[in-house]
């Protein structure tokens, strides 16, 4: 299958994502510049981490107006799998492709560490190769990952099983201490109502090879391959 990795000015995890899906997973991938207007026939889209447009105004606030985002929206609306990682998640929130917003971390510090993330739902194109309740060790690296949404929105997300990753202890317990940034409900990642658009703050692409400390992130990217191969896009659900 083919991934499109979108490159905004200030993206800095684009090559990590490209490396993970090509060299580690053996798939095809293409970089797509934010001013491009085509996703080059990709089967899945990755909005990578970084600091698109320098995080000016708000994280993801300017990137949302990049020409490629029209194509990303069209692709998402057609049921195509879209993964936003860290800054990519922030872009999806600003673009309204996922609900809510990011606040500055509760610690007001840039948090760069390995955390534990529990897989809550496996019926999305980015978790289908995971086990329900599986606890992944994946790094985070962000200053604004404190997920916020109004209580009624959070309730809707929980009811709709749209919370697909949660910060937990290594044993999979949801505790305040396991929450690195203050996110409501320990939310680390979400999916859209149609389940094909996924955003998460942790970086699976940085945890795809054991020499890097963990290969747990591979299951997330591998899920896209499985999902596309099965033709089991969330559109059908």
């Amino acid at each position: 299958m083919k991934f499109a990795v979108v490159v905004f000015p200030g993206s800095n995890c684009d090559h990590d994502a490209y490396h993970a899906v090509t060299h580690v997973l053996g798939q095809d991938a293409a970089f797509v510049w934010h001013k491009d207007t085509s996703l080059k026939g990709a089967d899945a889209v990755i909005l990578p981490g970084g600091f698109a447009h320098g995080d000016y105004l708000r994280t993801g606030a300017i990137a949302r107006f990049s020409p490629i985002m029209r194509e990303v929206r069209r692709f998402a609306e057609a049921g195509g799998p879209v993964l936003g990682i860290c800054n990519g998640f922030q872009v999806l929130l600003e673009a309204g492709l996922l609900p809510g917003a990011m606040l500055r971390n509760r610690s007001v510090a840039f948090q760069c560490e390995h955390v534990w993330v529990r897989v809550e739902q496996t019926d999305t194109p980015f978790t289908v190769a995971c086990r329900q309740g599986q606890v992944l060790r994946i790094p985070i690296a962000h200053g604004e990952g404190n997920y916020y949404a109004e209580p009624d929105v959070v309730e809707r997300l929980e009811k709709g099983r749209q919370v697909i990753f949660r910060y937990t202890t290594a044993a999979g317990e949801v505790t305040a201490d396991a929450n690195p940034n203050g996110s409501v409900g320990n939310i680390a990642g979400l999916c859209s109502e149609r389940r094909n658009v996924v955003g998460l703050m942790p970086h699976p692409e940085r945890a795809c090879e054991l020499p890097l400390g963990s290969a747990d992130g591979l299951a997330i990217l591998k899920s896209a391959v499985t999902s596309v191969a099965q033709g089991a896009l969330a559109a059908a659900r």
Partner: protein
Amino acid sequence: MRARVFVTLKPSVFDPQGTTVAEALHALGYAAVKDVRQGKYFELEIDAGSEDEVRRLAAEAADKLLANPVIESYRIEVS
């Protein structure tokens, strides 16, 4: 004309930066400062026919870009 747009976090939204600034002020001895909310301030030079039009354009800019309605609200002054 100039529109001044003040963007602040909604009262229901926790402001980690404002809280940190308040703590720093307390460390400086300003015990009287009870709370700090941090926000953003924009000056927009707008070429439009009337004050109402300037206000309307500034509000449109705030709705579409300057503020994120999920977490922020804004106030506009025109002069």
